[in-house]
């Protein structure tokens, strides 16, 4: 059947050779290569559910009255963008499912990009010749965050309104141009004019998604052109050199495409399951936003929590010339901090070349332990971001655990400065140790084979290894039947040939 359709297309468009090559495209056989695909499928869900919602969302803060199924707000007079969101949630069939699935998909989209990014940086996949695609990936993370933020603003509920005013204040803090910039974006001082809502919507549903879609296409095209990276088939130099040249894995058809479609089904199904079962951003409970309203404990979505944390941790530092505040405090945490974080990501190929690696081409990935200093640097960096992220929840920690707020802030400041160094040295040492011993903490074999003596009842060690000794693979395989099922087969399985299963 497949052959038939390829021929059908070939006879009409002459794309046969292209399709045939695509079918034979080889994907590496390691689960971590699928993390990016989670983001891809979450994006598809975002577009699907998002289009549905644009049919009902009204981007204006003109006032209207709610007369719908949600009793407690019956008769509420509020802005149309809020009320249309409540209507979407209660009065449009399937509307709430779509809204919640959309929001969960946004969360999963971002989280999948982050773990995919972690995979790429820890294994050195960003190195020559793949820097361009790496830059595209980092840009997509930035755009994804921005788009998620604009989406969070659209319902104009109490929490999103507070997010908007913080964004406005951070924007004002940009030296020299801040005020004009914000004036331009909001079409006036906060809360801006009605034009803001059109702008937000078009940015959220059209502008950024189009750019993202284009970048995703480019990202995939470049991958196909350069082929995937892969892990080395063995730890010796010879295997490494061979892996540089020869790609080992499963072909698109009949293997990988099915696997990937399976993942798509899982992601889509799981997101709709979350959307149907777990409540997210119940705007009908937050109520509409007015500039004079506020709620304690209001938080942005988690993916911006690191900025809130940074705002809190930054000491009150405002350089002044005479009476003029040159840089308002909000600038440091809210604007400079993310710029620094993204700058480090963008500069990573350069940093890596200078400090951790070489300028050569690499098709073979490093395992994190193979380059202890890079791994340690990245972990320290991630730790730093994670710490500011956690600091964004200090008020809740105080409330639930009664650890004084001020003490926490000082603790976090202290750890934010010294912690990364400690993490660097610990992780570096750890990676060196792992590299030396070549044990795998998560998989494979580093236990001992024993057999229960049927007569005496005790245990006899079969491999005779001492503590920490590496068991030769053949030995382990030979004893397999004795401990059936207690060991992962994959560790000894021969790498599959390029033609796949």
């Amino acid at each position, binding site marked *: 059947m497949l052959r038939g359709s390829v021929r059908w297309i070939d006879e009409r468009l002459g794309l046969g050779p292209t399709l045939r090559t695509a079918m034979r495209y080889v994907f590496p056989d390691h689960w971590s290569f699928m993390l990016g695909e989670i983001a891809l499928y979450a994006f598809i869900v975002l577009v699907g559910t998002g289009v549905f919602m644009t049919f009902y969302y009204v981007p204006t803060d003109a006032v209207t009255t709610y007369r719908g199924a949600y009793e407690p707000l019956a008769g509420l007079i509020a802005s149309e963008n809020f009320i249309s969101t409540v209507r979407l949630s209660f009065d449009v069939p399937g509307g709430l499912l779509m809204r919640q699935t959309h929001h969960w998909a946004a969360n999963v989209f971002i989280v999948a990009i982050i773990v995919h990014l972690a995979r790429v940086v820890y294994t050195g996949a960003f190195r020559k010749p793949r820097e361009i695609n790496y830059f595209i990936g980092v840009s997509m993370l930035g755009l994804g965050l921005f788009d998620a933020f604009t989406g969070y603003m659209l319902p104009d509920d109490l929490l999103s309104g507070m997010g908007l005013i913080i964004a406005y204040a951070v924007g004002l803090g940009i030296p020299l141009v801040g005020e004009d910039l914000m004036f331009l974006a909001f079409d006036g001082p906060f809360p801006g004019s009605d034009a803001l809502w059109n702008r937000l919507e078009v940015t959220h549903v059209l502008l950024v998604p189009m750019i993202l879609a284009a970048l995703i296409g480019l990202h995939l095209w470049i991958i196909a052109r350069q082929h995937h990276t892969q892990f080395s088939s063995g730890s010796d130099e010879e295997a490494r050199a061979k892996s540089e040249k020869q790609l080992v894995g499963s072909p698109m058809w009949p293997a990988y495409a099915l696997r990937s479609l399976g993942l798509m089904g899982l992601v889509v199904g799981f997101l709709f399951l979350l959307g149907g079962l777990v409540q997210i951003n119940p705007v009908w409970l937050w109520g509409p936003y007015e500039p*004079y309203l506020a709620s304690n404990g209001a938080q942005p979505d988690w993916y911006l929590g690191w900025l809130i944390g940074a705002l809190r941790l930054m000491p009150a530092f405002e350089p002044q010339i005479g009476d003029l505040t040159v840089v308002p405090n909000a600038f440091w945490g809210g604007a400079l901090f993310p710029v620094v974080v993204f700058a480090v990501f963008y500069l990573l190929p350069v940093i890596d070349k200078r400090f951790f690696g070489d300028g050569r081409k690499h098709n073979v990935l490093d395992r994190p332990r193979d380059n202890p200093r890079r791994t340690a640097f990245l972990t320290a960096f991630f730790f730093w971001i994670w710490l500011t992220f956690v600091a964004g929840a200090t008020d809740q920690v105080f409330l639930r655990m009664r650890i004084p707020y001020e003490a926490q802030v000082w603790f976090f400041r202290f750890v934010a400065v010294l912690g990364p160094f400690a993490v660097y040295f610990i992780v570096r040492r750890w990676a060196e140790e792992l590299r030396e011993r070549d044990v795998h903490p998560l998989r494979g074999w580093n236990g001992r084979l024993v057999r229960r003596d049927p007569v005496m009842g005790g245990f006899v060690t079969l491999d005779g290894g001492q503590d920490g000794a590496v068991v030769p693979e053949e030995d382990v395989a030979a004893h397999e039947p004795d401990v059936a099922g207690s060991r992962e087969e994959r560790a000894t399985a021969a790498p599959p040939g390029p033609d796949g299963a």
Partner: protein
Amino acid sequence: MIRRLVHRRAWLPRRVRIAVALVCGALALLGLAGPGTQGSEGAAATKLDAAEGPVGSSTGAPPDQGLVREGRRLFVDNCSSCHGQFARGIPDRGPSLYGAGAQSADFYLRTGRMPLPEPEAQPSRKEPVLTEGQIRALVAYVATLGGPPIPEVDIAEGDIAQGQSLFAENCSACHQILARGGIVTRGVVPDLLGEVTPLDVAEAVDIGPYVMPTFPWLSDEQVNSIARYVEYADDPIDAGGWGIGHLGPIPEGMVTWLLALSALILATRLIGERTAP
């Protein structure tokens, strides 16, 4: 108002207002909350003096002399160490209770706030150490010192939508919009779930315990609506499924990382690699 000016050491209304401003500043992170979270709208609403509230049994009816005497005895035993032998207050220990009224005594005793373990502590809700009968006696005694009676509240008269917007204007900056509580510069703001009754709400709005301000501009009808909303917020309509605590983004992020991410990584781990032939 004068009662408060005279008797409250540290939490004079102006201070309170500053506290609120600071709170909102801290909340909206580094003082970005914008103008007057204190509900300029609400101020325009009907002004109603607390003293004009409904006259409750404890001042309207002639006080039961036996009950008052019992209350007086309990007061000397349990309260005089801070509030003084004759309830005139002791500097740096406890305020005078002249003018506090049955309302305040009822609130502080029923919610277990009094007797306070130590003068510096923030009063907080506890299981009352006194029995109901003892509380009634103490309330009757404090009522003889003058002050507002126990207010009446009827949530059936209230309206949730009005309550929600009044709560957003007046209370959510401290108590969180679904009354889940939070922190302010000078203390912990409790949640208003579970044990908090409509009567507690009506009393608290009038008394302004600890750093909480008073809300003289709220009419009885508005207080009914707020109390009704607070009841509703305890167990609101979770049309979307599991409510994960009604705290907003923090639990949502936890679900994303701990539930969604681990489920999906497990899935890729299971299907992402070909098993050996």
